[in-house]
């Protein structure tokens, strides 16, 4: 399964936006420079992944986690990224937690509703059974009279 090189590039529009916001107003960027930065970003991710993976393997883990990536940043001499990354991670965890709680709440509400509906249904069934029994008794009485 060969990956085409363009699959491993990050979207140009997003890269351009990040660059423009990092630079003062009125500054432009040539297509070649933007393309080179985009490729540099991909190489950065690959290099960081490889570094992070070393930390994971050292910890005898098969799954890369956030702290592996942070350790990789320090190893790559990008310590200045560590603090903003930690903050972003906290925000991300909060958001994930919020999403999880929201969906659990929804599920709880749904279950409560289903339970209430089932109770009503079983009450109706009991009533039906009673009515059938009454009808049978009446029929029996009639037969006796005939005899």
């Amino acid at each position, binding site marked *: *399964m060969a*990956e*085409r*090189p*363009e*699959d*491993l590039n*990050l*979207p140009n529009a*997003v*890269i351009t*936006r*990040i*660059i423009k916001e*990092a*630079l003062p107003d009125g*500054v*432009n*960027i*040539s297509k070649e*420079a933007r393309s*080179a*930065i985009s*490729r*540099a*970003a*991909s*190489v*950065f*991710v*690959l290099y*960081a*992944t*490889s570094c992070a*993976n070393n930390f994971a*393997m050292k910890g005898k*883990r098969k*799954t*890369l*986690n*956030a*702290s*592996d*990536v*942070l350790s990789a*940043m320090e190893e*790559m*001499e*990008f310590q200045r*990224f560590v603090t*903003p*990354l*930690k903050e*972003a*991670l906290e*925000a*991300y*965890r909060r*958001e*994930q937690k919020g999403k999880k709680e929201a969906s659990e709440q929804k599920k709880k509400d749904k279950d409560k509703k289903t339970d209430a509906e089932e109770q009503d249904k079983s009450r109706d069934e009991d009533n039906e059974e009673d009515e059938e029994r009454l009808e049978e008794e009446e029929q029996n009485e009639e037969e006796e009279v005939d005899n």
Partner: protein
Amino acid sequence: MAAAGSGTPLEEEGPSGEAAAPQPQAPTSAPGARLSRLPLARVKALVKADPDVTLAGQEAIFILARAAELFVETIAKDAYCCAQQGKRKTLQRRDLDNAIEAVDEFAFLEDLSIPFPDITVS
């Protein structure tokens, strides 16, 4: 930092990497707490391209995406310094090359003239 290894393993999402419009992640509720703008699916594809990587947790992918953003900002600003010296308002490829040469942390980027690094994915 308590790393409890709580990252969930990735699930297969199907083919990604089409050249269509980028899909930015959900906007944040809190102002200033900017979550990643780079699509996590693309970052995940890059991570999976490494044959030594078995699995990567969602948090790891997210941090890599955010780190890549910070990297782009950093290298753009460094390259801009060179352009400024030449009194230009447009960043050129050579500004980037100069920045890579000048900044130690960018050493891993040397020789970006090759179209893409030598990665073989079997």
